[in-house]
């Protein structure tokens, strides 16, 4: 395991090493690091250099498709015939403390058609005609639960392990633990349309150094990354000349301050930035893809345009070595009174809401799986699909469903997961509460870290006197959802 450090506790490199680093620039540094000459000094110069995992990783990258607003488990992947049968009857064990508002206490059947799909015979509701074709690549975890029963606290819990803000998110932990392979691109990318409830707190780097923070791409903005593009009035030659002078004077400045490694890091950062100006727009340029690919993702269709672009960009980023990507699914086509920042939040009318959200996300998500697979990337890319909690099995009003933190389904595909349409854990006969092999977010996180080659108990960071972990004091590895023996 590599040594973790807190700011201000960096060990300085020797003068010789320092000069080598400055002299040879980034390339040799990265090479040196990859050749396992992974000194703390190198980390001090660039903490994002790839780091050796605790054990052989199964996944190299993660794409988390976050279904913002919380899809209903019993209307998507967790088929409950009993709920269909007992529609309108009292839901046994209905707990008034569950939802955010008040629920009726009476069973609400799923309004969708259900069919079995794939070799596994997995039941899928008809809002996912495309994803249904991929059930045999998926591993379903039906028994997820958490504590928060409102969007922001639950999303913070799902991403950061606990429902109060201030802890680093999974993406930040992973970046801290593993660094990144492509220094010209950010290691941790978030894509959103309207920001989900909880905003940046959901993907915060918390108390970790800002090095590990996410770069958020706002689908509503024209310029994806702030200040990425060279100023209009400046030519490449002008900028290059400027950077040459900068490097020259900075090197002279650093040479008389030989004990300060951070000076060299900053010299390198300008070279990285210069390359990023080209590399990042190239990575985000989904337009350069073939028409067939764009069509596959639903780009050009009103319903699927935004999520389609985000999924396609995610694939392009993974191809280019980006480690961790989170997409917060934006608004559906509407019509049920739900709000843009929590599109799946079907309080009023689960049918209208989920049809609309399904229509916006099904095809792009399926395209992502198909595309990753055809390019041989699915094995090394962990795709996760799920929301911040589930929904009540009893009705809110007459045709809506309230929040339900006791049960929700998350599926994973690729990245060393078991696949084959394997179903892990179970809810009760109404899909109301997880009852078998319950999976807390800490367990989910432990498993994700494991797939990436990290031991969740060893990935720690000392802050305000305590060694913090993503999984805090919990976390059980879900061995059954991982392919093969571990």
């Amino acid at each position: 395991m590599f040594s973790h450090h807190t700011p201000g506790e960096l060990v300085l490199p020797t003068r010789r090493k320092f000069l080598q680093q400055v002299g040879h620039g980034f390339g040799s540094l990265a090479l040196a690091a990859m050749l396992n000459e992974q000194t703390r000094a190198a980390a001090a110069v660039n903490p994002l250099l790839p780091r050796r995992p605790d054990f052989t990783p199964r996944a190299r990258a993660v794409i988390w498709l976050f279904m913002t607003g919380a899809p209903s488990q019993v209307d998507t992947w967790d088929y409950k015939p009993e709920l269909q049968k007992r529609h309108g009857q009292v839901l046994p064990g209905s707990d008034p403390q569950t939802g955010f508002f008040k629920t009726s206490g009476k069973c609400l059947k799923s309004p969708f058609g259900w069919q079995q799909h794939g070799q596994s015979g997995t039941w899928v509701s008809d809002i996912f005609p495309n994803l249904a074709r991929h059930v045999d690549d998926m591993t379903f975890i039906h028994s997820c639960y958490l504590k928060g029963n409102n969007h922001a606290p639950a999303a913070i819990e799902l991403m950061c392990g606990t429902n109060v803000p201030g802890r680093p998110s999974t993406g930040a932990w992973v970046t801290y633990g593993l660094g990144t392979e492509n220094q010209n691109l950010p290691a941790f990318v978030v894509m959103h349309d309207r920001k989900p409830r909880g905003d940046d707190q959901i993907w915060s780097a918390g108390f970790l150094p800002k090095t590990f923070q996410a770069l958020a791409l706002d689908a509503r903005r024209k310029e994806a990354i702030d200040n990425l593009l060279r100023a209009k009035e400046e030519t490449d030659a002008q900028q290059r000349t400027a950077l040459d002078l900068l490097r020259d004077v900075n090197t002279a400045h650093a040479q008389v301050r030989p004990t300060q490694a951070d000076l060299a890091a900053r010299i390198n950062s300008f070279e990285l930035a210069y390359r990023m100006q080209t590399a990042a727009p190239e990575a985000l340029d989904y337009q350069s893809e073939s028409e067939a690919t764009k069509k596959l993702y639903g780009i050009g269709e009103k319903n699927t345009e935004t999520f389609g672009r985000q999924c396609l960009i995610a694939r392009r980023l993974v191809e280019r070595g980006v480690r961790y990507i989170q997409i917060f699914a934006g608004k559906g086509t509407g019509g049920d009174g739900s709000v843009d920042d929590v599109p799946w939040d079907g309080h009023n009318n689960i049918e209208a809401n989920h049809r609309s959200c399904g229509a916006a996300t099904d095809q792009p998500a399926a395209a992502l799986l198909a595309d990753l697979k055809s390019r041989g990337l699915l094995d090394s890319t962990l795709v996760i699909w799920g929301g911040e909690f589930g929904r009540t099995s009893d009705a809110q009003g007459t045709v809506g469903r309230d929040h339900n933190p006791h049960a929700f389904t998350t599926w994973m595909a690729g990245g060393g997961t078991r696949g084959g349409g394997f179903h892990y854990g179970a809810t009760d006969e109404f899909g109301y509460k997880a009852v078998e092999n319950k999976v807390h977010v800490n367990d989910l996180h432990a498993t994700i870290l494991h797939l990436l080659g990290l031991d969740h108990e060893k990935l720690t960071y000392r802050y305000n006197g305590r060694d913090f972990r993503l999984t805090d004091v919990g976390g059980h590895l879900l061995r059954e959802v991982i392919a093969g023996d571990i």
Partner: protein
Amino acid sequence: MQTLHARQPRCVVHFSLSVGLLFSQAAFAAEQGPPSPEGIAFFEQKIRPVLADSCYKCHSVAAKAQGKLKGGLFLDTREGVLAGGDTGPSVVPGKPDASLLVKAVRWSDPDVEMPPKHKLPEPVIADFAKWVAIGVPDPRTGAQGSAKREINVAQGREFWSFKPLAHPSPPEVKNAAWVRSPVDRFILAKQEAAGVTPSAPVSREKLARRAYFDLTGLPPSPEELADFLKDESPDVFAKLVDRLLASPRYGERWGRHWLDLVRYAESGGYEFDGYRNGAYHYRDWVIRALNDDMPYSDFVRWQLAGDKIAPGTYVGEAATGFLVAGPYPGQITAKTEERIRYDQLDDMLSTIGSSMLGLTVECVRCHEHKYDPIPHADYYALAATLAATSHGVELVDADPTATKTALDAHAAAHAPLLAALRKFEAEELPARLEKWQREEMPALSSTARWQTLDPIEVRADKAWLDAEADGSVTFAGRTKAVQNRPGRAQGTDDPNNITYTITAHTFQRNLAAIRLDAIADRKFPKSGPGLAADGSFNLVEFSVTASPLDAGSAEKPVTLKLVPAQARFAEKAMPIQNSVDGNRTTGWRAKDNPGVDNAAAFEIAGGFPGFDGGTVITFHIEFRTDAIGRLRLAMTNSPLPARPAENGKPAAEIPDALGGGTDVQHLRDLRAMLDAKLVAAARPDAMRWMSRFDCEGKALFDTVADHARQAPRPKLSEVYTTLQGGRDVFLLRRGDVGNKEGKAAPGFLQVLATTEPGRWLAPPERDPRVALGDWIADAEHGAGHLLARVIVNRVWKYHFGRGIVATPNDFGAQGARPTHPELLDFLAGELIRSGWKLKPLHRLMMLSAAYQQGADANAQNQQRDPDNKLLWQRPAHRLEAEAIRDALLSVGEKLDPKMFGPAEGTVESARRSVYLRVRRSELIPFLTLFDAPDATRSMGDRGATTLPTQALTMMNSPFVRDIAARLAKRALAKGGTPEAAIDHMFQIAFSRLPSGAERTKFGAYFSRQKELIGGTDPKLAAEKALAATCLVALATNEFIYVD
């Protein structure tokens, strides 16, 4: 209920809270006698195998040895089963339903479902229930494994940071010539012992730049620098330090450091991230306090209890913004409220712990501290000191002195006007009145039903009211903010209820009914008549009392019994009857009629005869949150024409019977008055009425009334702060709100108290938060010695780059040990001796030779002390995000020195960064990019990361490029030629002139850029090339790393 307090000082404190229970169960088991052979057989066959298979993995001595013990529960011995774990005894022998173990295996409580992965088969669960029912027969022997960390507070006090301050003398050193301040002796002694030598002093230019940035966060201007360099006096640097400490920029710079520690932000975080308009007053208070060099002990006390130390004052309220600056959910329901409340207390406690004491108090929320001598109960004792706190907005006068001056001036101007009126009343009025009565009154008549009551006095408990010349009363602003906090008391104690009290006089007899008009007015939302956003009001109680005007009267005041009559508009669910039902939770409202006058009339049951010598009528009109914006009151002697509307039916419309205006009432009243005995108290009333009929009298009367209406009112600021509220705090096992252990009484951390908490809490009516502040600042018996060590270390860290204790927020066992413990205690002692003043502390540090060192490349030092723990050099420090931005604004001459006030939202603002908005969901990207904290928890050490996105900002952002253009203009204006301009650029940006080589390099670059820019206008090309040159200067390491 058990109260967790009244601890006696003990040598060893075992906080085993289940001791009592353990005994009682042991007794129970003993009563049962030895287990029967059948019971043992049952255990061996049905229970033991299951325990071994499904439970020992996490609940046994073996599990503990592997670090896998969960919940502090041992199920591998009988003692362990009976004693239970962190959540209490696992069984109540004989009572399966009350036994946690049985509940856990039944999976009936979602928080405790055991075993966690697979529910046991139902027959096995039934076996467990039976086992408990038959008295828990268990032949296993052996002592229970101990999971609990036994905290020994007395021993804990021996830890270095909890010990009293030592009073070390500065040690002797060999190289005494190097020493400039006592600080140096401590530094040098260690260096000499380790064979390390200090670096040579830094150049004066660099020293000045260092001092400017350290104390003000801004670079010196070339002129300021020149003045400093010119001064040959030996104390030139001391003078500079004093000057900078006196600069208002000091508070802005150091205030920002403090704001890091207290997770300062101006919004709630979570969903919606509600912006707190009045939060910035706390930031301003911090800046002012530091500029004023408020003693640090008071600085801390005020933040904990300013609202109690100086209630109702701006400074008091602004200071306690500290407690409530943390995140708080934007949507709360009854289901989550209690947990959120404990989260909020935890936020306050962890912030107090980290920022003031360098302790991780939050670790004790669920269990005893794993490393430091802080028992679980101490956390809740500390939490109990904060029990009666809530958060919200107070309206306070930010400048009471100005208000008093204005009020005094108004009163002085009012006195002669009033004297003239009184003189007229005494000397002129009787004759004029008599003449008028004789000549004019008989010709007047009065027929209108309603007579307007002219208010004599108007006031409200949470608002200002204006008495208008037409007899109406207008709302003129709230003096108490609306509280929108969940869990607030409703109904009678609703803090948002607002009461108008309006007094009028009448001399008439036989009052029959009262009328209230709510008048639409364009200055209110939707033109009123109410103040709610939809133009409505919610009147919850309307009552009228009558008392004799004549002070000599023997009559008693009476409350008039009102029969609801009619309202013009009312919602079906909120009829007019609600306003006289004696129930403050129900009200009269009409929200579908904005912008239209509303009215209500109330019959006085049985009528009211009135008092001899006149009647004072007092109206109490109580609203819930939303009052009437403008109202008028009237009375009548005639009975109402119609009966009240039936329940459920729309109220009959009130005929608009106000009739012929105010004079009508005066006439009738005047007649009544003249018919009666004219008491002295009635003379102003007579004047009031006569003024309407007498030109001279009117002029005098109106002058006084108009002037009175102009009485100045303070400008109230909306301050987001700590409010009275909250509720009792209970000790929670494992921090779980469902597992309360008894009310917690206020107290403090025992390890930081050499006496009982009563020392600070007595007398009992003393506010526990005031006591908390006194304890924390009590250097003799309380936590003051640690408080001093922690702040001294912070000041040191900001000056030297690393604290004497490298973990400024953790002075506990997990934290670093001081590199120079004697120095730390010496400085802490100096701080206390100087009356906790921080400015002398800065002087003490900055005037040392250690501070004024450079950074020699000394191989021997580097080898002997590679981490510079002995301070043999002072390496360059990267500026913090705010200082980088402020330095940019400064060199670009864009900086707006305006202090204080509402925050500004963008990086483009010209204000200093400390005044930029801190909204948790939308932090300023420029600042977070350079490591500004995310404002959710105390941040004692930001670190300084380096990112390519920072470089992109320096290269491409419009903000930085604009600064470069401004800097170019500034340098050119001063220099004239490009060469001279480059020299000036160096002076402005780096506080020095370029070397020959630099001059050549930058000159060549300038020429090359000019060529590349080309174009037809050489002057424009030169300007652009100079801006490009300045951009490189701003991007250099030298610009943001200060030697």
